[in-house]
């Protein structure tokens, strides 16, 4: 049997309608084609078509923001896997964690990847903030992107905090008891905060039963409703909010003139 000509096969594949419908441009190495390749590809277009040489220097950015995003993607991927087994119900949550940890093949790996990537995300988001501060990259025209970054930092911490409750063991229950007790002191909305007594006197609202803390807890103490609320916020609320802000954050880097350069 005669083997088909290699050049012919190549031509058939790369000039087929299917291939050309996905990849519009070839790999000819000339400036115009390189720009077109990047600009016409949904993944590649997240990067600028051209960037300053200093911007890819690792010693300048430490890639801290990029690594934060990478860890976010790791938590999303492993978190979705964990969702196949974990049930956010008072009776099941802790046994499900044990099941994942000790019986499900690779369950321990997935859970620990999720856990360590979450830790890494929190650490690296601070490193990123430190780098941006030290290089003065928060200065105009990038001041609004710093604000978006602070919101993303808050989302990251809230993701960690809500995820902390989900193992449903003593550590997580007490950590969240402590954490949500701070909401008692919310001005106007917490029953031990400033102006709470005045509002309670006028309207009968802002009591231990109806205030910021009980809204978080779904009751007056950490219980099964709290677990469900934190699960929904952890898996849906904060990831969507964070993703939207990340899109804005990355887009603004481009619109504000790319990664800041040395002065």
């Amino acid at each position: 049997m005669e083997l088909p000509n290699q050049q012919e096969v190549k031509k058939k594949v790369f000039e087929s309608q299917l291939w050309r419908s996905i990849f519009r441009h070839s790999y000819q190495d000339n400036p115009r084609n390189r720009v077109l390749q990047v600009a016409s590809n949904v993944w590649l277009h997240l990067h600028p078509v051209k960037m300053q040489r200093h911007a890819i220097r690792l010693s300048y950015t430490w890639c801290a923001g990029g690594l934060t995003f990478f860890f976010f993607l790791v938590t999303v991927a492993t978190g979705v896997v964990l969702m196949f087994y974990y049930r956010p119900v008072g009776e099941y949550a802790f046994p499900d964690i044990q099941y994942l940890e000790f019986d499900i093949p690779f369950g321990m790996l997935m859970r620990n990847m999720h856990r360590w990537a979450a830790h890494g995300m929190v650490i690296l988001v601070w490193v990123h903030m430190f780098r941006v501060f030290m290089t003065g990259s928060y200065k105009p025209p990038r001041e609004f992107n710093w604000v978006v970054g602070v919101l993303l930092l808050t989302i990251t911490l809230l993701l960690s905090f809500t995820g902390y409750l989900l193992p449903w063991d003593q550590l997580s229950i007490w950590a969240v008891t402590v954490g949500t007790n701070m909401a008692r002191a919310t001005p106007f909305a917490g029953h031990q905060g400033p102006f709470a007594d005045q509002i309670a006197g006028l309207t009968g609202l802002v009591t231990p039963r109806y205030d910021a803390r009980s809204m978080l807890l779904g009751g007056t103490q950490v219980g099964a409703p709290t677990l469900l609320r934190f699960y929904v916020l952890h898996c849906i609320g904060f990831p969507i909010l964070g993703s939207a802000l990340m899109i804005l954050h990355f887009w603004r880097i481009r619109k504000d003139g790319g990664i800041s350069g040395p002065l």
Partner: protein
Amino acid sequence: MAEATTNPAPNVGEKAHPPRPPAPITDPTHDNHIWARRSFLSLAGWGLFAGTVGVWATAGLRLMFPRVLFEPPSFFKAGFKADYAVGLVSEKYTPEWRVWIVNDEYDGVPQIYALIAICTHLGCTPRWLSLESKFKCPCHGSGYTKAGINFEGPAPRPLERAKIYIGDDGQIVVDKAVTYRWEKGEWGKPGSFLPA
């Protein structure tokens, strides 16, 4: 166009008219009104939008507070007065109800009072250390005297007392839904203690 027929095109050499001063507002709807008649539909549209968002936001907020909570009752029966020896801190109901019942003198009055075992720092459960005669929180080291007054660690205020009274059957009832706070001067109020 009607305008084109009534206003002939200006000649090239003709001097341009000076710009007209704006016509005085004669439309009665412009006088003494905070908005123009023409913006009614726009304002109504935005008003409808804001109203819809407001109603949905209110409904969403209210939905976060269920009418019925599936939580343990806030009160429990705690035996008879005679069960509590003078000077002792009873931990009998602490594991289930997070309350210590103390028979001791406070402010010169011999009394039985119920201290809620929730640290006022950040809500952990302190322990009763009988040898040192103090309540000690394992989380951040807050310490309270037998009366519940904070004297060490980060706790910002004394422990809270729960309502304590004699029920219909002569037994002590402790109701954690009603609390008495030292810093508000509530520890002398009826209900904050039982005369021993």
